[in-house]
C-alpha cells in the first residue's frame, strides 16, 4: 500500500445505507475492485437515520474522516431520507466551518446499488484526501 504523510493511515467511518451504498460496496467486492482498507463500513437502514452525533462522535473518537453514503437524491427507498440527510450534512459542515474545524473531513456520497466502481472510487478519494490532510486534530487531542 502506498504510504504518504509519514506512514499516516487515516481512519474513516462510513455510514452506508442498506439499499444503495452498502449494496454498491458488495458489488465492488464481487467485481474485485481494490480500494484501501481505511474505511470502516457501518450499515444503517437509510442515510436519513444518520444522527450528526454519530459523525461528531466518530471525529472525536479517532476518525480522521466520516462519510455518509445514500441513494441518489430522488431515489430513496424511504422516499425522502436522503433529502433529510442532505440537510443534516449541510448543517454539520456549516457548523464545522463556522468553528474553523475541518468541514472537509465530512463526506457525503450518493452511490446507487449498481455503482460498485463508484463506491471503490469514493473510498479511494476520501482516503487519499484525508491522507493529504493528515491526522484529524480533533481526534488527537486527549483533552477534547
Amino acid at each position, binding site marked *: *500500500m502506498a504510504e504518504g504523510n509519514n506512514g499516516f*493511515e487515516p*481512519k474513516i*467511518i462510513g455510514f452506508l445505507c*442498506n*439499499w*444503495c451504498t452498502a*449494496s454498491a*460496496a*458488495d*458489488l*465492488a*467486492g*464481487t*467485481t*474485485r*475492485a*481494490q*480500494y*484501501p*482498507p481505511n474505511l*470502516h*463500513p*457501518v450499515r*444503517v*437502514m*437509510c442515510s*436519513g*437515520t*444518520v*444522527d*450528526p*452525533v*454519530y459523525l461528531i*462522535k*466518530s471525529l472525536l*473518537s*479517532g*476518525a480522521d474522516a466520516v462519510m455518509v453514503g445514500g*441513494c*441518489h437524491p*430522488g*431515489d430513496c*427507498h*424511504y*422516499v*425522502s*431520507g436522503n433529502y*433529510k*440527510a442532505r440537510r*443534516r450534512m449541510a448543517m454539520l459542515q456549516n457548523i464545522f466551518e463556522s468553528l474553523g474545524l475541518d468541514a472537509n473531513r465530512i463526506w457525503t456520497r450518493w452511490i*446507487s*446499488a*449498481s*455503482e*460498485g*466502481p*463508484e463506491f*471503490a472510487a469514493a473510498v479511494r478519494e476520501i482516503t487519499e484526501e484525508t491522507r493529504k490532510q493528515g491526522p484529524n486534530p480533533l481526534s488527537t487531542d486527549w483533552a477534547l
Partner: protein
Amino acid sequence: MVDKVGAVLVIGAGVGGLRAALDLAESGFKAYLVDSNPGIGGTVPQLDKWFPDNGCELCKLLPVFSRDGCSQFCLRRDMAHPNIELLPNSQIQEVTGEAGNFEVTINSVSRWVKTERCTGCRLCAEVCPVEVPDEYNDGLQLRKAIYVRSPQAIPNFYCIDRETCTKCGKCIEVCPTNAIDLNLPDESQKVAVGAIIVSSGFQEFDAAEMGQYGFNRYANVLNNLQVERLLASGGRTTGELLRPSDEKVPKKVGFLQCVGSRDTERNYCSTACCMYTLKEAILIKEKYPDTEVIIFYMDMRAFGKGYHRYYQQAQELGVKFVHSRVSVIRENPKTKNLLLLTRAEDGTDIRSEYDLVVLAAAQCPSARATELNQALGVDVNQWGFIQSQDWWQTRTSKEGIYVCGSAAAPADIADSVIQAGAAACEAATLLASARDQLVEAEAESVASAASDEDTKVAVIICQCGEEITAAVNTAQVAEFAQTLPDVTSVEEVRFLCLPETLEEVKKSITKSGANRVIFAACAPYHYHRLLGNTMREAGIDPSLWQLVNIREQLAWVHKDDQAQATEKAKKILAATVDRIRGQEPLRITPMTVEQKALVIGAGVSGMVAALSLAEQGFETYLVEKSAETGGHAGEAYYNLGNEDPQAFINDLRKKVKNSSQIHLYPETGVVEVNGRSGNFSSILKAADDTTTEIIHGAIIVATGAEDYVPTEYQYGQNDKIITQKELQQLLVKNGLGKPTTVVMIQCVGSRDEGHPYCNRTCCSDAIVNALNIKEQSPETEVYVLNRDIITYAFREEYYSKARETGVLFIRFNQEDPPEVNATDKAITIRVNDPVLPGKLEIDADLLVLSTGIVTGDNRALAETLSIELNEDGFFREVDTKFRPVDTAIDGIFICGRANAPRNLDEEIAQAQAAAQRAVNILSRKELQSGRIVSEVNARRCSYCGICVTTCPFNARWLDEDEHVAVVDEALCQACGACVAACPNSAAKLRGYRDKQILSVIEAVL
C-alpha cells in the same frame, strides 16, 4: 367444477414477473417464478438509470408489510420470499389441464454447477479458456463459458454455457468445493398451478438486419442497450461514453429512432424507445455538455406520466430533434466516423457526419416466444405477441392464462408493472377459493433467550477456501475473537455455506449453549435464508444472530494488504460482538385487519376495482359523488379497436348492482378518514347530509378527471368548433352529414405551458373519429394538425390505416400553432406546412379540437386522505415505475385518470392492479410489523412532534392525552428518519439504537 390449486406459475422473472409473483405471494398464493436465464430481473438489471427521473428505485417493488418474510435488500442482488419458488434456467415444456388446475412440465437446464456448493468465488471463470461475447453487456465485453450473468445477478452461482463449453475440465480442477459436475442432469418437474401469468418480455430487434445502418459492421454504430452499458458505472468503460473504434468521447452523437419498428415489416410502435433514447441523450448531455446530441425521429412519443417534462428537460439541455428518418449510414474507413444521409421534411437531402450513432432497436417477441405460446395454447397476433382481449389487457385467448408487459405488446416498465398487478389480480380472482391453500403460515418466532441468561456469543469465521484467507489471517482473527467479552466459542470453517458445514455449525452452537451468534463470512444475499433456517433450528432468535461481510467488503477488495485487512476484520468483529451483546430479541407486533375496502369514485376504474375486490370475496364500499356510475366512459360510444364501450359499461353497472359484496353509495362523498392501513374508519356524507361511518382496511381512489374546456381556437364562439367527444356524439347519431372538410387540431390543453403532460388518449380519439368520418363520408377531406402522433404499440396500425384512407396529417410546432379565423359562414385555418413552403390555408366546415384531461379539484380529498398531488393536480404515486398505484400512505391506492390520463383499457388494468395491492392487505387477518421498527421512550419524549413531521409513512402520531409520540408498528418501515430527527433519542430504532451505533464507532476506531 375443477378443484382449484392455490398456486400460480409466473413465466419470466423480469420486472413484471417479479411484481406479479410478489403480489400473489403477498396475497396468499404460492408462485413459481420461472426464467430461462440463470438470474432474475430480465432486462432491468442491465440498466443503471430509468426514465423519467434517472433514478433506480427497483427496491420499491418489495413488500412493506410483514416485510421480514421477504428479503430486504436491493433486488439487483436477490429476492427471497417464502411463497415464491424461483426456477432459473427453466422453460415450460408442456401445459395441460384447464383454468384453476393446470399441470405444467418445467424443464430446468442443468447449469452443471451444484448451486448448494457454489460459493461464487470466480476461480473457475479465471481458468476457463473459452471467451464469448457477454450478453449482459450486449456483446461489448467478453465472458467465459462458466460465468455469472451479471455481477449483480442472483443467484450469484456460476453457470456453464453448454453451447460454448469445451468440457476441458479445468474448472473442475480448481473448484474448491467440488461444485462443478459436467454430467449433472437436466431436470424436469411437473407442477400443479391454478393459473399462469406470462411475462416473458421481449427481445431486442437485431439491428444488423437493417443492413443500411451497418450495425455490427461499423464499430461506432451501437444500439440503445450497448450505450446503456457504456454509461453504466459497472460497464466496460465504468460509465464513460467511449466510442468503440478509438475509445474517445464522441463529440457528436446521433440517435436513430424506430429501427425495426413502424415499418412495413413491423408496423407497430415499440413504445419505450423514445423514452430510453431521451434518457441516454440526457445522461450524455449531463455528463458531456459539449457533445452534440441529435435525435432523428418520426414522432416523439413521451406520453407516460412525467414523460413530457422529461422530453422538455432534454430540450433544455440542448438535445436537438430532427424530424426525419435516416435512409443510410456510411462509415469513413479512416476516421470511423459515420456519414448519415437523411431527407428533410421539405424533401432536401442532408448529409452529416457523426462520431457515434445509436439505433433504437424495436422490442420484438422473444426467440422462445413461439414455442412457449404454442405450449400455452394462446393466440398470438401477426407479429407473434400474445393477443390480449378487448378491454382486458391481461386476458389471453385462454382462460386462466394471463399476460403482462412486452409479451403482449411493447411496453415500458411503468406499464408492465401495472399490467403485472392486473394479471396477478386476474389470477387471484380466479383462484380466490384456493387462497392460503399452499402457503406456509408465517414461521413462529423461536423462543427468545431469557433475559436473565448470561450472554454467550459464538463466533464462526468462514475462510471461504482461500478466498478470505488470502487477504485475512483468519487464525489471528479467531484468536482475537476469543479475547472479546462474552464470546464463549470461536470456530473457523472452510466453507460455511456448504450443507454439511451448516449441519455441523448447528450442532456446535447447540452444544456450546450460545445464545447469540456472529458469522464472519460473505455478503448476506446468498445465504440469508440458509443461515436463517439453520439458526431457527439451532434455537437462535432471528435478531440475535448477525452476519458480517468480510469477503465482498473486505477480503476481495483489500487483497494486497493482509496486515491491514486482518486488523480491519478484527475491528469489525469486535464491533459486531459489542453490538450483539446489547441486542435484545426483537418481537413482531400483529395488528388486526378490517377485511373490507373503500373505493372512491364509480367510473370504470372504480367499478373494476370494486368488482375485483368483491370477486375475491372482500366487502367493498363504492362511493360516487354523482348520481350515475360510469364516469367519463359513460359518454364513450366507440374506441380504437375495442368493442362497444356502452355495452361494456352497462355490464359493469349490472355486475356492481348485483354483487352482494358491493355497497354502492351514489351522490356521496368521503368527508373524514382516520386510522391506518388495515384499519381505517371513514365518514361518508350523502347529498342529503346524512352521514355513515364505515370501517375498512384499504382505500382505492378512483375519482377520475375532467375534460379540458378549451379557451383556444375560438371554442364556444362557433357551433362548428367542437371537441372530439362532441364529434363522436355527432357521428354516433349520424348527424355529421357530408362536410367537405374537417380539420382536427391536436394537443389542445395538453403538452402546453399550463399542462406540460401528454393526454395519451387524444391521438387515438382523433384517428378513430377520422376513420369514422371517412367511413360515413369518404369524400370528406380530413386534416389532422398535430405536433406528434402518439399511437404507441399496435395503435400504430390505425394511424397507417387513417393515412391510407386519405386522412392528411400535418405537423406544426408548438411555437407556431395553427391560426383559426371563424365567422358565421366559414372557418379558415392557416398552418405552416413543413413540406411545402408558406402557409397552408384550409377552409373547414368543422373544426375539431382534441382536448386534454385536467384534474378536478382533488385538494380536499388529498387532504382528507393525507396523500399528495403532483404539480398538475393528479394524485401522486410513490414511484411511477415500481409502485405505480401506491400512494405514500400505506393502504391507500390510486388508479385511473385521478392518477394520470389513460386510455380505457389501461385504466382497467390499473384498477385491477390497485385492487390487488389492496388485496395484499385485506387477505390477511392481521398485518405484522417488521422486527426492526422504531419505538418511543415515553419518559423521554418531549411531545415536540418532529418525528411525526419527519416520518414519511404516517407511522407516528401524537397521543394528546398522554402527551407522547406513538408508533404504529405496522406502518413503520424502519427508515429511522425519526431517530435522527429526535434530539434526545426518545425515538429509537430497534436493532440500531444509538448506544449500539456509538459503541460500534468506538470499537472500529
